[in-house]
């Protein structure tokens, strides 16, 4: 068995030519093969790549989907998000627990099953949902669980059984400017090849396309900076690490409009003078891997990727897909680059910017999936057409991922400038009490602001739109958002590593009804320090759930506030519980 593993690990290393920057690929292959990454495997990887074992450990221990100890053959990861919980994820968890006789987080004695929570898996419109190894099952009901377990049990193909196929349904509800028109593979490339690379960049600049991941950097300027930077190679990276809770529009694009995205990458490759593009696909979307590889292969055969694309001499460009391994921070572009280079996903300090020193220190443009789809569409339909849609500062269409308390969840392809009210009408949510816009990193929008426009200059969003009805608790949702940041903080810098935990504990105290006015003031002060002092966008945005709800929903905080000047975080009864249990005095139940 060990000899087998040694051979397998050596093969995985050989598959990437012993390249230490491909450590994530090696680790994922070992994980898939053996179910975990043993000490022996770490030593073998170190040996085969020239890394120190402790460096392999540094990377491997960072990612949620890589294990250093054995777990169940079937990894059932239930999505825990504000949306999944209102759709009944807790009941699904209980059904799994009952069916397997274990608690969440545990592994069955026979080593077949591990059930655990995971953060949002990009299925907000189809919750409750779960990953079973790399397959994704959605719209789960309690009645489904025994059948799923029986099916998994009857399957005995060793370490990686996949008897349950993915059940993801199409997410697009309303096609609009981006997706309604006809588009054939290669249309964007052929239009781009009629122009010089500089002219392509000019067109993108004229369209005033801005990054769709949320930050809104002008795409044309990014491409121009990258093209102008000197380097051995230039790279285009497609950021398909769509991790913001509540968003799934990039998944929809990759599943249903992959040619639009790949055309966009190829157009960027032409414009930047890149020969290689990399798509960084989040680990949660592993179920799309084969179909995306098929798309790439079909395009190679059609002359749309590879040597002399569309017959154009000297235009050689191909795309590799890099799978992620469960780390929200890798959606941050500099962390993504670190991950691409086989390291832990800790952000880089800037300058230098990726446009000068990106992947392998070479000039690199990193664009969101939707941004690249827009670029392909601009090539076909023109910059003027694109700039004529939307608002002054936010041109073109925007894909919104809508989920929660609404009749028609899914992706909406709408022009920028739409108000929240108009959106709520479209999706069937007349009674919305608040909208979490742009995910936990964004803000909770109260009804008084439903007239605001979705646009960079007003309500800026990456697309996540979570709708909550009147019986949802905005303070508790904010606390859940803090849980998310605690789990996803990379840990590199003090304010985010420690601050997210302190903020979560502060929210726990408020939700638990033990917070005084002084506690709330201290929490707000701490939140502002974390926002000011954190190294990257994750930490700078992590306090938003606290700060935006305190600002716009003060009555919900007031209602929970204790009038005393001081209330301890833990009640005396809770503090003494363990001692009471040992002394056999459990009967004295804790009061508040």
């Amino acid at each position: 068995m060990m000899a087998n593993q040694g051979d397998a690990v050596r093969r995985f290393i050989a598959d990437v030519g012993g390249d230490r920057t491909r450590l994530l690929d090696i680790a994922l292959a070992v994980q898939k093969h053996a179910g975990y990454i043993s000490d022996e495997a770490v030593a073998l990887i170190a040996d085969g790549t020239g890394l120190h074992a402790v460096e392999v450990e540094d990377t491997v221990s960072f990612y949620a989907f890589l294990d250093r100890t054995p777990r169940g053959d079937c990894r059932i990861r239930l999505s825990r998000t504000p949306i999944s919980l209102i759709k009944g994820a807790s009941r699904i968890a209980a059904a799994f627990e009952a069916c397997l006789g274990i608690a969440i987080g545990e592994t069955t004695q026979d080593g077949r099953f591990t059930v655990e929570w995971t953060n949002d898996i990009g299925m907000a419109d189809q919750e409750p949902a779960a990953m079973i190894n790399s397959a994704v099952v959605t719209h789960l009901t309690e009645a489904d669980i025994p059948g799923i377990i029986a099916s998994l049990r009857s399957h005995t193909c060793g370490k990686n059984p996949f008897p349950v196929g993915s059940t993801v349904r199409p997410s697009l509800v309303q096609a609009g400017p981006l997706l309604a028109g006809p588009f054939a593979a290669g249309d964007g490339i052929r239009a781009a090849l009629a122009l010089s690379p500089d002219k392509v960049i000019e067109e993108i600049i004229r369209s005033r396309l801005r990054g769709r991941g949320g930050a809104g950097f002008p795409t044309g300027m990014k491409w121009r900076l990258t093209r102008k930077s000197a380097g051995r190679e230039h790279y285009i990276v497609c950021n398909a690490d769509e991790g913001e809770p509540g968003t799934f529009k990039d998944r929809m694009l990759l599943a249903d409009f992959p040619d639009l995205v790949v055309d966009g990458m190829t157009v960027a490759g032409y414009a930047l003078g890149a020969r290689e593009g990399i798509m960084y696909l989040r680990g949660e979307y592993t179920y799309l891997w084969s179909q995306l590889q098929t798309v790439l292969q079909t395009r190679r055969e059609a002359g749309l990727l590879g040597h002399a694309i569309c017959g154009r001499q000297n235009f050689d460009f191909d795309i590799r897909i890099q799978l992620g391994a469960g780390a929200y921070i890798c959606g941050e572009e500099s962390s993504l680059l670190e991950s691409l280079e086989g390291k832990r996903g800790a952000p880089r300090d800037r300058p230098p910017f990726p446009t000068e020193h990106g992947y392998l220190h070479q000039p690199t443009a990193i664009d969101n999936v939707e941004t690249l789809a827009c670029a392909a569409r601009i090539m076909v339909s023109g910059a003027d057409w694109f700039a004529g849609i939307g608002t002054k500062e936010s041109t073109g269409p925007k894909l919104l991922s809508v989920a929660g308390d609404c009749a028609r969840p899914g992706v909406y392809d709408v022009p920028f400038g739409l108000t929240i009210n108009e959106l709520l009408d479209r999706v069937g949510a007349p009674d919305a009490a608040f909208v979490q816009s742009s995910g936990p990193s964004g803000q909770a929008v109260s009804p008084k602001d439903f007239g605001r426009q979705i646009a960079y200059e007003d309500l800026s969003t990456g697309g996540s739109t979570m709708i909550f009805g009147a019986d949802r608790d905005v303070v508790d949702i904010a606390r859940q958002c803090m849980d998310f940041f605690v789990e996803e903080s990379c840990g590199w810098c003090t304010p985010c590593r420690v601050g997210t935990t302190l903020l979560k504990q502060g929210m726990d105290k408020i939700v638990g009804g033990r917070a005084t006015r002084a506690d709330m003031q201290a929490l707000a002060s701490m939140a502002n320090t974390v926002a000011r002092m954190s190294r990257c966008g994750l930490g700078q945005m992590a306090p938003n759930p606290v700060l935006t709800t305190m600002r716009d929903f003060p009555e919900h905080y007031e209602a929970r506030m204790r009038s005393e000047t001081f209330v301890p975080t833990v009640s005396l009864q809770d503090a003494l519980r363990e001692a009471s249990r040992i002394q056999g005095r459990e009967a004295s139940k804790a009061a508040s």
Partner: protein
Amino acid sequence: MDQTSVQAPPATLAMPQNPIRFIVDGMIVEAQPGQSVLQACDDAGIYIPRLCYHPDLAPAGNCRVCTCKINGRNSAACVTPAMHGMSVENDTPQLAADRRVLIEMLFVEGIHPCPYCVASGDCELQALGYRLGMVAPTENYQWQKRKIDATHPDIALDHDRCILCSRCIRASRMEDGKTVFAFSGRGIEMRLTVGADGGLGATQMAAIDKAAGVCPVACIVIKRDSYMVPNGKRRFETAPIGSDIEARRPKP
């Protein structure tokens, strides 16, 4: 890329007609090409509080204590290249308060019993707490479960006191060429690790290594070497942290 030593700039770039000058709290500071804001300020006798930065090591930007408002944006001075015309705010009430909170975060994240710690008086965390006016932590102690590694004959590793500054990681890799240390895990679960099952004692680490001498707290302690300097006569008991840098400031 090794930025560990400040090298003399090429003569052409250092010509006086092309100096890098920028403003720190109203004072003009001159920088050598390649210097960070923090290095240039050090040379000019302006102390920017810092914790993970070490003059012999490449900066890593872990602690964020050296954060200044640079051209209107908060940036860590240790990793920001000095540029001509920059405007830097360092000594402001807001930054002092935010830095104090960072120090407090580190105090409650680990376990730092100053009164009976071997490093008391020599500890940069403690000294910054004093300098920044931290009286007692107001946040909850986290009481995380961490281990003490006493496997090495000459070095003790007390993870409770680790502030994850990465100095030893950088020193071991770049200066000692050994790569004994790395991080493991992420977020609040992130830890310093030596990778080896047998602990520090099973690694190539030696007490004379650079990595053994750069710890700002008492996480890495050389055995049988403590209390050579008595309490009351240690570095930061005779002068506040940063005094050595401020002493470089030209007298008006």
